[in-house]
């Protein structure tokens, strides 16, 4: 049986851990609010650029040729994987990694090129012999559009140089603070559907629609990546908050149980001592 000293030491340890998890929980819950409103703020631009693209594509009537639209046989595939730099976020990174492995199952390793955002995923895949062509660190408190631009430039270059024939992004969609969904979206070749929601009005274009579309396309890709990053960060913070909150609760529960054990041990010690005194006194009679 554990001695009282052992139990006291354990209580202290668990208490210290609880302090840390509680602090992490507070930080995450403050940041998740900000990340969430940032994700919401990114939506109007993304929706608008998609709408403008549709109108343009309809006006250009498929006469557009652009390197980012080139459909090739998918021999080499590229994957942008968004994980976090820091851990302590429950199953957040594990879920992303598992989805990536499932997605890559039909492909042999030499046909896959990975661009990693976030240290956790980068370490996992480079240790397992995947071809990680580029690794970025994932901002932990705020994503700026410039961060997304750096990533997007790399991806567009890989695609334009035909090093990869199709690019997907694996990120975690933010649905609510406790609900996140790992999502795989195709980024390149950019899919522009001219079909739905097109206003039939005759537009005047400056410059010509093909030129406009050519300039708009890279931005469209940037926006998609920015959005994936913002959503992922919000999910990361949400996951961390939930994980740390339950860790704090578990620690409290453990302290309670250990305190009970401690009291029991103390009681037993007192009883034992009393019995010894009584039997000692009896023996003297």
């Amino acid at each position, binding site marked *: 049986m554990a001695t009282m000293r052992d139990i006291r030491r354990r209580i202290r340890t668990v208490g210290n851990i609880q302090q840390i998890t509680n602090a992490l929980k507070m930080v995450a819950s403050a940041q998740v609010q900000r990340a969430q409103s940032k994700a919401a703020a990114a939506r109007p631009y993304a929706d608008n650029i998609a709408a403008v693209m549709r109108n343009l594509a309809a006006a250009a009537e498929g006469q557009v040729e652009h390197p980012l639209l080139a459909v090739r046989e998918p021999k080499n595939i590229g994957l942008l994987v968004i994980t976090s730099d820091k851990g302590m976020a429950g199953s957040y990174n594990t879920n992303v990694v598992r989805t990536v492995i499932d997605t890559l199952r039909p492909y042999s390793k030499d046909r896959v090129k990975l661009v990693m955002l976030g240290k956790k995923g980068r370490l996992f895949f480079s240790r397992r012999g995947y071809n990680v062509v580029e690794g970025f660190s994932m901002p932990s408190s705020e994503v700026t559009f410039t961060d997304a631009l750096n990533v997007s430039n790399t991806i567009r270059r890989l695609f334009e140089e035909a090093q990869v024939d199709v690019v997907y992004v694996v990120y975690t969609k933010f649905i609510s603070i406790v609900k996140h969904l790992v999502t795989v979206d195709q980024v390149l070749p950019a899919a522009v559907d001219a079909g739905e929601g097109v206003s039939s009005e005759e537009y*005047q274009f400056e410059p010509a629609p093909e030129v406009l579309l050519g300039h708009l396309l890279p931005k469209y890709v940037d*926006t998609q990546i920015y959005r994936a990053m913002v959503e992922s960060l919000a999910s990361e913070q949400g996951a961390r908050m939930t994980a740390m909150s339950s860790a704090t609760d578990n620690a409290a529960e453990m302290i309670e149980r250990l305190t009970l054990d401690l009291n029991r041990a103390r009681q037993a010690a007192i009883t034992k001592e009393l019995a010894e005194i009584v039997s000692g006194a009896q023996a003297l009679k």
Partner: protein
Amino acid sequence: MAERTFKLEVVTPERLALKEEAVSIIVPGVEGSIGILAHRAPIMSELTLGQVKVRYKEDVTVRYAISGGFMEAAENTVRILADSFESAKEIDVARAEAALKRAQERLAAKSSDIDMARAEAALRRALNRLRVARGE
């Protein structure tokens, strides 16, 4: 008679910058400035670095700095997808001046071609912001 207005919506990648009723707007198109009034025939244009002048109801004109983007006008709505978009009040003059100085130093140092192009673009953006902030 009340002036005829149109809906103006400006979005940047990071936020919804503006959603207002406006009477007229002048934007820097790549092929020259474009002025727009209510019920304009549909137009789509690429925008360049420069100033956007918006006249609201009650004769208030506000100037904004824009660093390029796209504009779509249709169905009495003008949508601008801007790379960045700030009103004179929102511009951080100290930051723009610092950026200007940095860009000038970089141009004076003459490093590789890419850096030069970037420094030049940064210089233009800083100058544009300062111009708008000073109301020139």
